[in-house]
């Protein structure tokens, strides 16, 4: 089992570029949330050259739509959502300085190439382990698009969130390398 490495965000570009597909990290620091509807808004604002609700440069995006926060808690269940649905938006966000994305599931070849081109990384959280991930969130602040409900943008401060580096800045892709290693002839 690869050793869990501590990793802080926002990270400098060199640290992100040094991540290797198959690394297991404990991420601490700031991440911003956005999923389908928020991406549409972000793209509209980028095209209109309007300021975004949060900076992209060297930042980390988390594909999540948390369940509502019960009284006395910081956040509801908050596991990752499928990355593939955001494939159409990802290259533009990476071109604008975004460095890491947390999601689940494989990405298109175009997006893998974009991670390489922009020296960025795709980190995988465990889909469905959402109550566990909520325990890693120490602060949650609503930043934008409250009308989108579960799709609103939040700024989260997280501590020791366990993540697997799936696609690295060299374009290595654990979604291909992993299954290849374990596949058997039918």
């Amino acid at each position, binding site marked *: 089992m690869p050793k869990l490495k501590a990793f802080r965000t926002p990270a400098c570009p060199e640290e992100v570029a040094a991540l290797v597909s198959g690394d297991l990290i404990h991420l601490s620091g700031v991440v911003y949330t956005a999923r389908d509807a928020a991406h549409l808004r972000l793209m509209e604002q980028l095209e209109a050259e309007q300021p975004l609700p949060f900076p992209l440069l060297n930042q980390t995006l988390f594909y999540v739509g948390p369940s509502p926060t019960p009284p006395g808690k910081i956040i509801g*269940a*908050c596991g990752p959502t499928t990355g*593939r649905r955001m494939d159409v938006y990802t290259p533009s966000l990476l071109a604008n300085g975004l460095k890491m994305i947390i999601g689940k599931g494989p990405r298109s070849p175009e997006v893998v190439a974009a991670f390489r081109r922009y020296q960025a990384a795709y980190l995988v959280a465990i889909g*469905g382990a*959402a109550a566990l991930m909520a325990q890693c969130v120490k602060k949650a602040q609503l930043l934008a698009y409250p009308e989108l409900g579960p799709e609103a943008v939040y700024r989260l401060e997280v501590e020791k969130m366990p993540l697997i580096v799936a696609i690295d800045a060299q374009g290595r892709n654990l979604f291909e390398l992993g299954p290849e290693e374990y596949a058997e002839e*039918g």
Partner: protein
Amino acid sequence: MRELNVDQVTAAVAQLSIEACRYLGEDVRALLEQARAEEKSAFGCFILEQILKNLEVAAKEQLPICQDTGMTVVFLEVGQDLHLTGGDLTMAVNEGVRRGYQEGYLRKSVLTPLSRINTNDNTPAVIHTKIVPGDRLKITVAPKGAGSENMSRVKMLQPADGIAGVKQFVLETVTAAGGCACPPLIVGVGIGGTMEKAALLAKEALLRPAGSSHSDPAVANLEKELRVLINKTGLGPQGLGGKVTALAVHIQTYPTHIAALPVAVNLQCHVARHRSLLL
């Protein structure tokens, strides 16, 4: 004739929605434990351990197991000798969903399909009703997340495609879904009937006790064989490589037309939720 006030239906649906989202059945948990013992990949084992730990945290913290608390699929088996009183059954079910999702702090994920406007209370539910003998009402609430639902497919095969065609389609569906459907999966397969019947059979297959075998030995063999084939893909937990991609394959069949062979594959992630109550 036995009477049942639909207020009881509302209360039951609310309770079942919350319970289904917080507590996984022991059958699924047992399969996850078994998967952890069988898995060879280090990442796969790590993922399965985290998935099992998550179940404990969800119960302890009274949080949903997964933030995607789904579109609420409700199965009603209504006894033909039962008289429902006090209002509209569909409205009563939807009121139960509204209440359960509000009171249980469950995510409201339902919206109008084209204008994408959230209904803000997770209604309407998808309701499947069957009239059955007797005077009872069985309610099953099965919240279905979009991660695995999005990767599900229906295909109208040709009779000449036969069992080999069925196997190929199931394998193609699981492979195309990859890590998106959150494996390890329970794979529901509906074979026969018409297009919509096959889809419903596949969904109903997911309600069977996880890991149970079909009563027809030929179908049970096909289930076993498909599970082995799926696990040979090497996709593994979360699609990152490993031995356990399917926890179970459940097949339901129904007679079909001489010219037809409809097959539906309804993928279910490891958060295989459903709760039932008999009123």
